[in-house]
C-alpha cells in the first residue's frame, strides 16, 4: 500500500508537470494560441513556472506538517519541472520572440527592470538545477543546502518580475506574492516550532487514546 501511494504521488507529479507542456504543444498544433502565439507561449510558460515554484516551496513545510518523507521526495522533481518551464520561458523570449537580435535583446532584457528581475531568477536557479543530481548532493555535502537556499531570493525575484510585468491590474501578482512570502516565513525558526507542534497535535488527535 505504501509503495503504491509513493508511486502514485510520483506519477501524479509527472503528469502534472508534463500536462501543461503537452497542452501547449497540442494548442500550438491546433492553432489555438491566439493570434499572437509567441506572446501566449511567454505568458503560459511563465504561469506554469510560477505555480510549480510555489509547489516546490510548499513541499518542505508540507512534509513537516504531514510528517511525510514522501512529499519531500517530490521536491526535487517539482523543482526540475519549475526550471524546465522557466527555461522554456527564457528560450521563447530569446529564440522565437527576438530571434537572437541582440541589439533589441539588450534593450528589452537589460534596460527593463521587470525583465532583469526574471532573468536574475533564472540565473539563480540554473546552478540549483545543475546540482540536483545525487552525485552533486554527495560532492557538495553541507554546501549543497547552502547553495539551494538560493531558491528563496529566486522566488521573490520571480514574483517581482510578475508584479512589474502586470499591466495596471496587479491583483494576481499580489496573490502570488502573499503565498510566496508565507511559504518563506514558514522557514523561520519560530514558525518551524509552530508547525511541529501543530503536526504533533493532529497526530495525537487521530491516534486512539489509551
Amino acid at each position, binding site marked *: 500500500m505504501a509503495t503504491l501511494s509513493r508511486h502514485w504521488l510520483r506519477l501524479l507529479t509527472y503528469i502534472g508537470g508534463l500536462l501543461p507542456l503537452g497542452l501547449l504543444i497540442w494548442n500550438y498544433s491546433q492553432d489555438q494560441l491566439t*493570434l499572437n502565439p509567441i506572446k501566449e507561449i511567454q505568458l503560459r510558460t511563465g504561469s506554469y513556472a510560477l505555480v510549480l515554484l510555489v509547489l516546490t516551496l510548499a513541499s518542505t513545510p508540507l512534509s513537516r506538517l504531514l510528517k511525510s518523507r514522501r512529499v519531500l521526495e517530490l521536491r526535487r522533481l517539482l523543482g526540475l519541472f519549475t526550471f524546465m518551464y522557466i527555461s522554456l520561458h527564457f528560450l521563447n523570449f530569446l529564440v522565437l520572440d527576438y530571434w537572437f537580435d541582440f541589439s*533589441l535583446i539588450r*534593450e*528589452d532584457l537589460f534596460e527593463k527592470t521587470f525583465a532583469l528581475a526574471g532573468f536574475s531568477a533564472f540565473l539563480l536557479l540554473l546552478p540549483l538545477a545543475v546540482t540536483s543530481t545525487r552525485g552533486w548532493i554527495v560532492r557538495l555535502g553541507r554546501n549543497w543546502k547552502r547553495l539551494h537556499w538560493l531558491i528563496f531570493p529566486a522566488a521573490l525575484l520571480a514574483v517581482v518580475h510578475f508584479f512589474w510585468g502586470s499591466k495596471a491590474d496587479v491583483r494576481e501578482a499580489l496573490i502570488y506574492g502573499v503565498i510566496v512570502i508565507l511559504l518563506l516565513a514558514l522557514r523561520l525558526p519560530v514558525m518551524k516550532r509552530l508547525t511541529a507542534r501543530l503536526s504533533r497535535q493532529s497526530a495525537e488527535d487521530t491516534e486512539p487514546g489509551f
Partner: protein
Amino acid sequence: MVKINPSEITPEHLFHSRRQFLTGIGALAATALFLGACRGEDALPPAEEETPEDPLTPYDSILNYNNFYEFTTSKEDVALMARNFQTSPWTVTVGGLVNNPKTYDIDDLLAKFPPEERIYRMRCVEAWSMVIPWTGFTLAGLLKAAEPKAEARYVRFETLYDPAQLPGQNSRVYQWPYIEGLRIDEAMHDLTIMASGIYGKPMPSQNGAPLRLVVPWKYGFKSIKSIVRIDLVEEMPVSLWMAASPSEYGFYANVNPDVHHPRWSQSSERRIGEIRRRRTLPFNGYAEEVSYLYEGMDLRKFF
C-alpha cells in the same frame, strides 16, 4: 515615411492569392540563387534596411484580437462578449467650447459626413500591430461644423458608460468611462479620422462600434472606441490611462522607438500574423505628415 495609398487597397482574397504567388516567386528566386551559387558565381547581396511591405491584416484577425477593457481584458474574448452590444439607437454629442453644439443621431451623422477608405498601420503600446482598412471621415469636418471657440485648445472624447452592457466598467481597477484627448491641431490633422467601418463593412462591436477615433501616429489606446461625447475644452484632458499609470502613459502617446516603456519594447513590434519582429518607425511611419506638430518639443518629456 512609409505611406499606404488608398489605391493600394487589395480585397482580402486577392491579397492572399497574391501572397501565394509572391511566395512562389520567392521560391523560384531562391532556387535560382542556389543554382547560381553552385556555379560559383557571387550571390546577390541581401537588400539592406529595406522597408518591409504592409499587407492588410485579415478581417478575421482584426475581429478577434481586441483590447476593449469595457468588455473584458482578454483580447480573444472581446468578440464574444461584444456580440449583443446595442449600437442603435446611438447619439454623439459635440459640445463644450463651441458656438454650434449638437447631438447627432449616428445615422444622420454618417449621412452628413460620408466615409472614405483609409488604410493605416495600427501600433498598440503592447508592441503588436496591424494594418487596417478603415472607413471614416476626418474629425476636422465634424469639429468645424461645431465652430470651436477661440479658447478651445483640446478635444476630449468619452466612451459610452453603461456597466449593464459593458461589464468591465464594474471593475475598480480603472476609472470609467474611458476618456481620451487630443490637442486641437492634432484633432484637426487630415490623418485623424472618425471611423465607422472596417473592410467596407460597418464597424464591428469589438472594434468600437458605431463610431471610434483613429489617430494612426499614436499608440492604439489613443484611438478611443464607441464614442458618445466630444467636447472642446481649454485644459488638457486626463485620459483613463494617464490616470491609471501616469509614469507609463502620457497625454501625447506618439509612437516613438526612442521613448522606452517599462514592459514592452517600443523599438520593435510584432505584426499580427508574422513571426519576426519589425522595427518600430517614429510616429508609426507618419513622421513626414505629423512631425511638424511637435517641433521644438522634447518628446521624451512630452511622451
